[in-house]
């Protein structure tokens, strides 16, 4: 039981960082940024380069790589999306899709298609309230939680955070009241992409680094953002938690009593096959879109 809770929290931490970044860009620029998830492998690969090629300690390499990933997000905005501000969201969406593929294939060409690992020693799991946990997994959850708290502080107590919320609420009104929205947009790209980069580093620490690690989780990330209500950072965190638990709990429920109640034959065991684990997020996503498209914490959309 404790194991399921812990696995769910781990998954939520990884999804949450990506979903928060996605929802921020969405709230200010009003288009689903399909290239967002590609900043995750970028952060991970840059960290790997810093740690193994330049020989930096892993934490330092990660900090530099996350900052560089944020700058890459700002660059992506300057080169592609700034030229499309007045276009329909469809064109922005397709351009983002194209940019995502270009980034992914560039990383595949540079670092190769084979999975790589960070140079961390093999971890021996410790027992935590009945769940077996490696120290690095605790670091992952702590890092994600710390980022969320920092981000909450930024949104609530700083001028930039207030400007970001204003621009997300109504960009024209924010501009009219003296907020330099282009600067806010740059900040949003930087923070959003840096979060995605950090998410990539954490996923890489937990598993492996490979070019598809970003696109492979695009549906869960979008699902978490939409589930929470697109444009709401707190909603995205909540959405990631709900989805993280749904995926892990969904696989561990024995459906045998339910099926037998309807007259089916099970032999006492009926679990969702693990091959369908990704489908849980897809089904969730479609159900949310059908039943409550504004999300759990979403404001009504104009």
């Amino acid at each position, binding site marked *: 039981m404790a194991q399921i809770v812990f696995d769910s929290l781990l998954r939520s931490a990884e999804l949450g960082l990506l979903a928060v970044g996605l929802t921020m860009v969405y709230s200010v620029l009003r288009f*689903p940024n399909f290239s967002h998830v590609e900043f995750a492998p970028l952060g991970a690969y840059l960290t790997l380069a810093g740690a193994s090629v330049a020989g930096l300690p892993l934490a330092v390499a990660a900090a530099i790589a996350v900052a560089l990933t944020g700058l890459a997000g700002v660059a992506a905005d300057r080169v592609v999306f700034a030229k*499309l501000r007045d276009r329909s969201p469809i064109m922005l*969406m*397709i351009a983002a899709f*194209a940019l995502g593929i270009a980034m992914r294939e560039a990383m*595949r060409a540079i670092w190769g298609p084979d999975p790589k690992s960070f140079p961390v020693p093999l971890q021996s799991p410790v027992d935590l309230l009945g769940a077996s946990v490696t120290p690095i997994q605790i670091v992952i959850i702590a890092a994600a939680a710390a980022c969320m708290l920092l981000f909450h502080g930024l949104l609530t107590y700083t001028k930039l955070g207030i400007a970001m919320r204003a621009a997300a609420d109504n960009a024209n009104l924010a501009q009219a009241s003296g907020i330099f929205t282009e600067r806010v947009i740059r900040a949003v790209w930087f923070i959003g992409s840096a979060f995605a980069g950090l998410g990539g580093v954490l996923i890489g620490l937990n598993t492996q680094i490979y070019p598809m690690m970003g696109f492979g989780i695009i549906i869960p990330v979008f699902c978490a953002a939409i589930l929470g209500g697109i444009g709401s950072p707190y909603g995205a965190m909540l959405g990631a938690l709900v989805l993280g638990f749904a995926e892990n709990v969904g696989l561990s429920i024995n459906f045998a009593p339910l099926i037998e109640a309807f007259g089916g034959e099970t032999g006492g065991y009926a679990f969702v096959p693990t091959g369908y684990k990704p489908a849980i997020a*897809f089904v969730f*996503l479609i159900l949310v879109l*059908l039943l409550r498209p504004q999300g759990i914490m979403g404001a009504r959309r104009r």
Partner: protein
Amino acid sequence: MIDYFVYLLTIIGIWGLLSLSLNLQYGLTGLVNLGHIAFFMLGAYASTILVMVVGTSFVVGFLGGIAAAALFGALIALPTAHLQQDYWAISTLAAAEIARLLLKNTTIGGQYQGGAFGFSGIPQPLYDAFTPETYGWFYLALVLVLLVACWTLVQWLSEMPYGRALKALREGDDLPLALGKDVRSLRIRAMALGGGVAGLAGALYAHFNAFIDPTYFLPLETFIVWSMVILGGAGNHIGALAGALIIQAIYNSTRFLGGWVPIDQNTLGSLRMIVISVLIILVIIYMPKGLVPERVRRYAPAGRRGGT
């Protein structure tokens, strides 16, 4: 060499069908379908299963492929017809992946068939009536005949009142609603129609390639169809075909380049996708109407028709 060109033209023809069908959904109706490859996949699988497992004739297989894909189109449009464009895009992407996962996790007609194994040795129609040399030409002719037929169909539909209603829908719900059109039903029919054409392409592909598995139908392929429509010019059916020709030419050029440049196949495969995606970004920024822009009918300025 000549064999290779016959092969390439056949592939271009099949992808031309896909491009046409997406153009019907996006270019004409404005539906942002990011799960287009699912129609192609369902057409391929339905026809393969009908011919190989059930043992029907090829005609039934092809018709089954078209029907399965059209049904899927109507099914995903049915509950989502009221969604906004961005949500629609994400839900079609998810629906296509669910369909792919289902096929990936289900074996069909044997322990090592279907599922992740895919289908190999898919029979080819009228194979015995030709020699291996002439069979390529026959299949090319078959694809081209069907392509011309589908092009005629969508061109005819676009000029009918139905096509004009779809174009009105593209610009927003308000106008067709004011004219008393059923917006939901228009969307569902456009999805089913485009789905059917894409399903035909899928059936053609399965019997041409003689092998399919779930990795052939990744979201990346949907993007390739999109790049054809965007490059050629959304809303113009000639443009959609021109886009298919150019994108497939770039996509297949690596076979020739492979012998000349000292880069391994993996990297070349990545490079061609980078070329296509950068090209599409440039087209979106600098040439948003594409190579062959849609012809917009202009009417006389309002002032000249009487008035004050």
